[in-house]
């Protein structure tokens, strides 16, 4: 079946512009994560969605960052007034259900964001 997809694959923007990143999870996966990966660093948790529950936004680095997800479908991550330090690869992952044994995350290919 289809995996997690993300678009665009690359995005170059000017400082101060807004960007929107999209994630299509695997069909039937109720859990969805956004991560940020800066060069030479590990994956930094940004936000978690589980079904129709309130998302865990504790990882969002500032109020310029927001994310939406409608039900168990597509999610968008929006960064307003981009700054150079926002340059990174943004990864999306989905997982089949809430917590439980044998659940693994499936990752998308990422969006490489470059802020000039």
């Amino acid at each position, binding site marked *: 079946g289809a*995996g*997690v997809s993300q678009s665009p694959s690359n995005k170059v923007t000017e400082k101060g512009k807004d960007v929107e990143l999209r994630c299509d999870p695997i069909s039937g996966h109720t*859990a969805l*994560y956004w*991560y940020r990966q800066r060069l*030479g*660093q*590990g*994956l930094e*948790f940004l936000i*978690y969605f*589980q079904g129709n529950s309130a998302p*865990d936004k504790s990882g969002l680095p500032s109020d310029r960052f927001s994310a939406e997800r409608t039900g168990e479908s597509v999610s968008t991550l929006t960064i307003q007034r981009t700054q150079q330090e926002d340059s990174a690869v943004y*990864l999306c*992952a989905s997982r089949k259900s*809430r*917590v439980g*044994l*044998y659940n*693994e*995350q499936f*990752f*998308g*290919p*990422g969006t490489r964001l470059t802020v000039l």
Partner: protein
Amino acid sequence: AQSVSQHNHHVILSEAASLELGCNYSYGGTVNLFWYVQYPGQHLQLLLKYFSGDPLVKGIKGFEAEFIKSKFSFNLRKPSVQWSDTAEYFCAVNGQGTYKYIFGTGTRLKVLA
């Protein structure tokens, strides 16, 4: 504080050499442990995972990892690497019953043909 530490940032090996990548974690509770791999130009994908039971876990492509609870370690091993193992490897921990994962900074492995 919860953290995952990967000691080797860059590793270069010749084909057929043995591999061991270190992973130590700090977490107050029972954990699930993972190794993910990212081949050049590809997605992050699961290499192997430990949830419970036998602490020696076998994954895809001949990789294995051993969970040593007393050392808070989950080192990745492969007896004989191939050029196609060139990739970046990430160790991750997840507290059982929780949804957050903590990732290490990754180890870039280059295997020389």
